[in-house]
């Protein structure tokens, strides 16, 4: 086995994992606290990526674009929350699924109208578009290192926010007992809007960072949204810690599985069959993982304390 290739794939897996975490953190917070299933979370990711493309071409600087696109996505998120989602908190999950499904249709079409049907590319500045020696003689794209570093920084920041601050205290209280937070005299509406905005900003950040790696196109948020759902289901809905652990697991298994499964299958099957079976099987891996975990722990790895 090629150890350098394995190391690269592991890093790629971690990188996918932190992107998934950025998306899943918002989803799981919004679900844990507001009891809202938001399918349109992936749309915010897509919007973030489009903003990054536009602001990069306006300002000529990707770095500047990050600092513009993230607040812009936050703003979109807040507007959506105030106009539409706020009325859905009291509704059952089916209503929420349907309404946010409607939002996806709307966002995909709106993006197509504004930015056109063709995909966009986000060019990287030179200092990021280079290689970084993670080990002597082992280069790895600097930009991907930056993604991993940013993701871990955000995870630490979120941990600090949830564990050490007053807002975090309210968030934790809200996840276990909604009425209690109201009884504390907190403006619940504002708190919810804030949390949703935070989730939107994180999704936007994920979209911005994904921009230079994937093509920016309509519907780009849907595939990754479903992965993010798998992540929060595995992690335990409502748990940020669970989302982090599960995001890394899913990112790693998906990436490493895709690159090594053909070889592994080749050991037991003839090449022809291995080549046929491997792509199908490797995209099944994380779903098999999820099924296995849920079969033993129906509420995920880190179920919320209120059961």
């Amino acid at each position, binding site marked *: 086995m090629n150890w350098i290739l394995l190391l690269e794939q592991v890093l790629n897996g971690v990188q996918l994992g932190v992107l998934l975490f950025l998306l899943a953190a918002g989803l799981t917070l919004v*679900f844990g606290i507001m009891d809202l*299933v938001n399918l349109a979370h992936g749309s915010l990711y897509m919007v973030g990526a489009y903003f990054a493309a536009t602001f990069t071409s306006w300002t000529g600087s990707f770095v500047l674009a990050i600092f513009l696109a993230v607040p812009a996505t936050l703003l979109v998120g807040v507007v959506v929350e105030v106009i*539409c989602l706020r*009325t*859905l908190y009291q*509704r*059952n*999950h*089916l*209503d929420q*699924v*349907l*309404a946010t*499904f*409607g*939002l*996806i*249709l*709307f*966002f*995909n*079409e*709106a993006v*197509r*109208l504004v930015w056109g049907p063709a995909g966009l590319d986000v060019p990287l500045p030179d200092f990021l578009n280079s290689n970084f020696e993670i080990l002597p003689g082992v280069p790895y794209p600097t930009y991907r290192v930056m993604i991993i570093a940013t993701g871990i920084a955000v995870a630490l920041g979120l941990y600090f926010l949830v564990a050490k601050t007053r807002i975090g205290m309210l968030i934790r209280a809200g996840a276990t007992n909604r009425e209690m937070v109201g009884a504390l005299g907190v403006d619940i509406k504002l708190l919810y809007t804030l949390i949703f905005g935070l989730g939107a900003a994180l999704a936007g950040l994920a979209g911005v960072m994904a921009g230079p790696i994937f093509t920016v196109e309509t519907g780009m948020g*849907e595939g990754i949204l*479903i992965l993010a*759902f*798998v992540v*929060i*289901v595995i992690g335990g*809905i409502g748990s940020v810690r669970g989302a982090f652990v599960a995001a890394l697991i899913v990112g790693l298994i998906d990436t490493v599985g895709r690159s090594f499964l053909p070889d592994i299958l080749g050991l037991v099957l003839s090449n022809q069959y291995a080549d*046929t079976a491997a*792509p*199908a*099987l490797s*995209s*099944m891996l994380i*779903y*098999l993982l*999820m*099924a296995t975990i*849920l*079969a033993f722990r*129906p*509420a*995920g790895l880190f179920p919320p304390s209120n059961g």
Partner: protein
Amino acid sequence: MARLRIVLLIGLLASLALVPPIATWLDEPFYIVLFSRMLILAIGAIGLNLVMGYGGMVSFGHAAFVGIGAYMVGIGSFHSIEDGIDWMASGFFQLPAAIFVSAFFALIIGAISLRTKGVYFIMITLAFSQMLYFVAVGVEIYGADDGLSLYGRSEFAGLLDLNSDSAMYYVNFVTLGICLYAVHRIINSRFGLAIQGARSNERRMQAIGFPTFPYRLAGFVISGVICGIAGFLLANQTDFVSPDMMHWTRSGDLIIMVVLGGMGTLFGPLVGAVAFLLVEEILSSITISWQLYFGPLLILVVLFARGGIDGLLRPRQRADG
């Protein structure tokens, strides 16, 4: 109001029965195809409604069963020509295959998913259908992404010829009728009451002695089979199968049809499917960006017309939440 509802339903069924002659008379054969699609999707929605409306299990993955049913036709057609296995072109093979394979997958997916509740159930069914979608995308021999074009529709030698649009239409129409009648019987049977009781109050059902899990699982399998039959028809209708039939947004479409028509009502899925495809047809003839309007429309339906179309036609008797 109640009488109006019955009159409208009978009118709907009667006009659906008359679609082929009218379309032929108007010289617009396209309408036969459009309404055929409505009937087929209505069958799928009827299947979903059995678990979602009557069983209270919101499955976000039922398009997978439609896809399985469709692929049985595609795979049969493929091998009958490529490998010269004649019997695989036969509907007498393809239809039972669609039924048994969708039942098999529904059994496995249901057995795992039904261990979970609420939002976990929504997501795990979604994930399983995505998994099958990726399997279809990954299987190169059956066309991967691009899917398979049928070499011919299912052959029911000596019984049926599906090759005319009108014949296909009436096969769909009769199948729809059979499914409606079967579901009508099921929901009023002991089994039907058991799954509806489990929707209403699962804890209490267990306390009075019902093992709710196997009943729900059986309901999930029946509903998967109905969707598999819809898939069998859909493949024949479109002469084509592709992974797109199993895409999660197709599952979303089925949920929309059920809710739009009226969840947990016998005719709701049919009304919903007709309404859904009509709205799609009308909006998309006005503007290419029809989803820009369909999305918000859907949100408005959720916010303001919770009982669906059926709810608008019913006297307000129950205020259930």
